[in-house]
């Protein structure tokens, strides 16, 4: 309760000062443009009004306002120059100290219990008060957990509760400040704090319009997941996912080895972006399952170019190369130049007569860059096929041939 009141009070003060910043100059201008004012019976006269024209007063006001603002900005710049140097040094040393202390805490038995542990907690507690220091502490623990593969979340949770920083997580998560919310979500997810209220809050942030907040919320939720039902339920339900969202989700899911991905639910979703995530995860973390493979195959030839491309990408990586040749020969003509290029780039190292014959056709019929890629394969795998294209009279084939031979020989 205290935290909520202080968050809202802080917010109120900030808005109040912002309003004051606008109201004070406007009120002063209003005052100087009048002969005087009367407040609660006290009259204050404007000495400039009788001496100068209104235009002169107006100009003088703006000159004074500009000069004063100049002085204020100057003073702030000087203060920042002084403060920045101090804070930078402080943050650097705090980060260093926290990282060293926490690594010691994690990997040394002496801090497990007893007086040494109490003394350690006291030392951290002494270092951690104040927003800047708490931020440095949170950054250090999330950074460590992000880097190492061992799950130290329980140790971190114990440490935080012993030094009494759990309330800070709450304050940060419910703060009006975007960067506070982001760091809080990181702490909650890396420390696997599965408090219902926190989870609801993060889920709420995952549905927000704000990009940075939403993306971080996705990553946090995935880090917290043990089963996949959540992954399926929240991805792309409220927002059309951007490439950044997709990359963040996929990376977070790939890092969290505990997540069991339900490929079928993702791949059979009516939401395109959900299928995109499913295809990418299938490519990088596939569990052998014929049903999923059929679903991936169903996406090949999709009218959505991204979906089609990712379906091909997943398929080419999951199906053994000799088995994929038939699919390629069957569908190649129907695909865009971009996908044709991607298919061929994935099919180096295949030594199959049917495939070589197919490549010969590709060189004759397809656009320049596809020709080049097909020739690249033939140059490495079967140069005899390439020999016939040395002199064809077709300028594009000759251009492609020259590039391939030139680059390989050089």
């Amino acid at each position, binding site marked *: 309760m205290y935290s909520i009141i202080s968050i809202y009070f802080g917010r109120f003060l900030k808005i109040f000062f912002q309003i004051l910043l606008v109201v004070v100059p406007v009120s002063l201008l209003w005052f100087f443009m009048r002969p005087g004012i009367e407040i609660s019976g006290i009259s204050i006269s404007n000495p400039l009004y009788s001496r100068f024209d209104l235009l002169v007063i107006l100009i003088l006001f703006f000159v004074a306002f500009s000069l004063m603002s*100049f002085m204020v900005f100057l003073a702030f710049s000087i203060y920042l120059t002084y403060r920045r140097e101090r804070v930078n040094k402080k943050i650097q040393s705090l980060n260093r100290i926290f990282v060293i202390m926490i690594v010691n805490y994690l990997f040394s038995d002496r801090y497990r219990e007893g007086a040494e542990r109490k003394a350690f907690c006291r030392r951290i507690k002494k270092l951690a008060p104040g927003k800047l220091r708490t931020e440095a502490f949170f950054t250090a623990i999330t950074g460590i957990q992000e880097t190492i593969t061992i799950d130290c979340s329980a140790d971190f949770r114990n440490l935080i509760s012993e030094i009494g920083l759990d309330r800070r997580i709450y304050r940060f998560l419910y703060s009006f400040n975007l*960067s506070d919310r982001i760091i809080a979500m990181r702490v909650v997810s890396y420390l696997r704090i599965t408090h219902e209220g926190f989870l609801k809050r993060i889920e709420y942030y995952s549905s927000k319009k704000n990009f940075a907040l939403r993306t971080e919320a996705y990553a946090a939720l995935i880090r917290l997941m043990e089963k996949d039902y959540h992954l399926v339920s929240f991805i792309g339900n409220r*927002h059309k996912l951007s490439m950044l969202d997709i990359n963040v989700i*996929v990376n977070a899911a790939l890092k969290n080895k505990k997540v069991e991905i339900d490929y079928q639910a993702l791949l059979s979703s009516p939401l395109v972006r959900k299928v995109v995530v499913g295809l990418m995860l299938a490519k990088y973390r596939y569990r052998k399952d014929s049903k999923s493979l059929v679903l991936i195959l169903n996406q090949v030839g999709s009218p959505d170019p991204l979906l089609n491309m990712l379906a091909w990408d997943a398929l080419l990586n999951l199906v053994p190369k000799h088995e994929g040749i038939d699919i390629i020969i069957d569908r190649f003509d129907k695909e865009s130049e971009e996908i044709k290029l991607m298919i061929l780039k994935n099919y180096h190292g295949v030594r199959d007569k049917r495939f070589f014959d197919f490549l010969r056709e590709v060189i004759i019929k397809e656009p320049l*860059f596809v020709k080049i890629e097909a020739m690249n394969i033939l140059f490495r795998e079967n140069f005899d096929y390439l020999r016939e294209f040395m002199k064809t009279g077709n300028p594009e084939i000759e251009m492609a041939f020259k590039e391939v031979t030139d*680059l390989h020989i*050089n």
Partner: protein
Amino acid sequence: METGTPIHFYINLFFLVYGSLLFLSYLFVGIFSSYELSFYMKRNKYFNFKLVPGYKLLPSISIIAPSYNEDKGIVENIRSLLSLQYPKIEVIIVNDGSTDSSLDLVIKQYELVRVDYAFREHVKTAKIRGIYKSVNSAYSNLLVIDKENGGKADALNAGINISRSELFLAIDVDCIIEPDAIPRMLKPFLEEQDGRKVIASGGVIRVANSCKIENGRIVKVNFPENLWAEFQVLEYFRAFTLGRMAWSRINGLLIISGAFGLFDKQVVLNAGGYDTTTVGEDLELVVRMRRYMHDVEKQPYKVAFIPEPLCWTEVPSSLRVLSRQRKRWTRGLIDTLNKHKTMFLNPRHGHIGMISFPYWVFFEWLAPLVEVTGIIYFTIMLLLGRINIQYYLLFTALIFSFALLYSSFAVFYEKYLFARYTGFKFLLRIIMISFLEIVLYHPLNMFFSLMGNFEFFTGKDKKRWGTMTRKGFNSKK
């Protein structure tokens, strides 16, 4: 105020209204940029840009760097470009018919051999004499194109023709790029959603004169020792940190600096590539791309801007070179405005036609002309005793104080958000420069702008680039 005859009254009123509108525009720029800057910083404070190259779904990028007689720093500059961390990247250096030894130096240093490299000529360019690739696998993503001289736009077009990537980063070869510049510039493209296509993104350019550079990296940022470069530091603070950020807020940005911009290659090609008939090819391209998106694609789009200093360049350090550059900028500006004049106050082009384009006409092109006319007019009137000296001095004081306020605001934001220049000495010098700028640099810029107008309308040197004499970055400070 003594108005004299009615004609004087109307002339005075015109200057008053124009000046007030100009001040108001600066005020709005200040407010919008503050809002956008603080939002950008909060949004990106904890975003780990180092993770971006590890993403699974990324577009490929070509860095295209035209080069003309850059033998002093080209080897170092290419090294800087090659060291950028991104999985799908190619570096294309376009030697635009240099007459110095730059091509030989690059061939020797990077073990290049001439190859038959296939490409489609989407945009017509001057004849390509040869394409070079390295035999050293460490430089496998480096391509050097040797072509006949055709100007910067033509060189960029040649690079686009050769490029096989989805996006391209157009930069000046003498620029030093921050190590995380590409992920930062790329982020708006990755954030595309709701069918709103990002067609280009631009970044902040900073002055590299006097900075300490090692292995193609800025290792210490120093405030320039040359007076003209010092003025340009302040000018770049104001133009990039405040001006462009504000226009980005309302998606009204009309320029992405030719020295550093990431573009969607297909949109650029569909729009026709760089215009080789103008000297303001960077401004012209963005205006044409916007026009293309409005008229042809009819799709929501965005030109993004990254307020962080990502690219460092050597600026003119002599008055002669500075005057050439500014005259060229003015000619390029007028040419672009003239070429796309149908966009002016055209509601079909949304707020580009109704706000950005008119702003550029009234306050970027006409402001120096109005200012010089105003100074001459009021000085004559003052000498003839037709205006009140009190008002003359008061208005002058207002202009000076407002200029100081604007400069201090820009410096404050630089200190608050980026703090690339450190120490009190910098602050002291930039304040002195802010005062000097009003009485020395600004009038000079007005003069150069007038000369640019004269050259454009008389047809003299209309398409001439002029030479940029560089000192190179080899000297370590």
